[in-house]
């Protein structure tokens, strides 16, 4: 185990007072907080800074740490527990559970749970809750409409023979119908194991809707592009258009514009606020190549039709 110099991490002198420690911590915490700093390595740096503050802000823990620092910081090789540390730590209680965000170094010295593991004692006050986990679950749009059962696999840290080891868990999850992108599902007790089954952490699944080849989702409405030729847009047309549950007929009126929206009621997604609609968006497409004959017809049209779409420019 590598020794952690908390003073160096915070850039403080050994005799820094609590006010200085707090000021420096605040500055570094804001700088490296994962909600603010997306740079690689920032989250690790934040954890390191938070760990250092957790120890140095507390008089008892700081005194204990200072003692260890004198004992082990100079060692170029791995750091080991001081021989008399176990007995001297008895009156210094860190009341929170082992913190999975903190390093092995911290958990070895300042976690009650780690102490209990090391001492092989089973006190009732050593009960701890397992860590909650979050993972993303890709769901197809069709599956979100009908509901689906999906198998998932993930790894959680579990204490095995006194060591935190990652174990694989496999579950079948019933995704309820009507789930939306970013919605969360809680699987109670399926996170990391606690000291008894009741205290297992939870697993949170965050729904990620897989982009659909045809439809986009906007709230409870679905958006569908309807490509039309210029003459279909000019003359109007009856079309069969796809929906999530089969095809429906859509009457496109004459002279519709590119970007114009036509609503097909009730063909969107079902949500708490009611049944959504399918919004079709007209997209006028020019044929990629023209024959001499069609070019001649376009020419005739240009001579007959005097419409100027750029009147606003003059």
């Amino acid at each position: 185990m590598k020794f952690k110099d908390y003073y160096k991490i915070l850039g403080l002198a050994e005799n820094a007072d609590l006010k200085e420690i707090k000021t420096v911590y605040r500055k570094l915490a804001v700088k490296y907080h994962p909600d603010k700093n997306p740079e690689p390595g920032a989250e690790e740096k934040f954890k390191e800074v938070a760990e250092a503050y957790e120890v140095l802000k507390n008089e008892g823990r700081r005194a204990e740490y200072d003692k260890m620092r004198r004992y082990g910081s100079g060692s170029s090789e791995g750091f080991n527990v001081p021989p008399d540390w176990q007995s001297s730590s008895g009156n210094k209680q860190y009341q929170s559970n082992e913190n999975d965000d903190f390093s092995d170094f911290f958990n070895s010295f300042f976690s009650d749970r780690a102490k209990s593991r090391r001492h092989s004692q089973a006190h009732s006050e050593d009960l701890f809750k397992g860590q909650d986990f979050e993972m993303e679950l890709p769901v197809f749009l069709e599956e979100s409409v009908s509901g689906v059962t999906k198998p998932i696999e993930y790894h959680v840290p579990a204490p095995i023979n006194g060591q935190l080891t990652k174990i694989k868990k496999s579950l079948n999850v019933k995704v309820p119908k009507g789930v939306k992108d970013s919605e969360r599902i809680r699987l109670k007790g399926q996170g990391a194991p606690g000291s008894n089954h009741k205290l297992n952490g939870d697993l949170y699944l965050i729904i990620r809707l897989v982009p659909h080849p045809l439809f986009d989702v906007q709230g409870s409405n679905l958006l569908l592009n309807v490509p039309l030729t210029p003459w279909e847009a000019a003359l109007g047309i009856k079309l069969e258009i796809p929906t999530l549950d089969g095809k429906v007929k859509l009457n496109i009126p004459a002279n519709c514009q590119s970007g114009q929206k036509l609503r097909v009621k009730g063909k969107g997604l079902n949500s708490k606020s009611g049944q959504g609609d399918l919004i079709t968006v007209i997209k006028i497409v020019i044929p990629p190549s023209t024959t001499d004959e069609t070019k001649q017809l376009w020419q005739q049209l240009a001579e007959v039709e005097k419409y100027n779409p750029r009147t606003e420019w003059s």
Partner: protein
Amino acid sequence: MTDISLHISVNELCEIAGIEKCIIIEMVEYGIAAPISDSQDSEWIFDLESAHWIKKAIKLNQQLLIDWVAISLVIDLMKEKKKLEQENKLLKARLNRID
């Protein structure tokens, strides 16, 4: 088959986050989260989105040592950012279909 839940009670939330109920009441007063209004239970029930913001608020309070007024502002901005990111994602997808 694993049981799923889309809600969480205030007592469970307190247990998970390791906080007193009065803290959650304070967060609701600051608008950080809101219990489900049509809940028939006398106990407050939150959807998981609200529970997520409550847990985030607690972390910000502990990690950045800032008060609830500042946290409520930060959470508001984070929610706004998330909404804009989702809108941006949709608009980009729409643009790709036009190209």
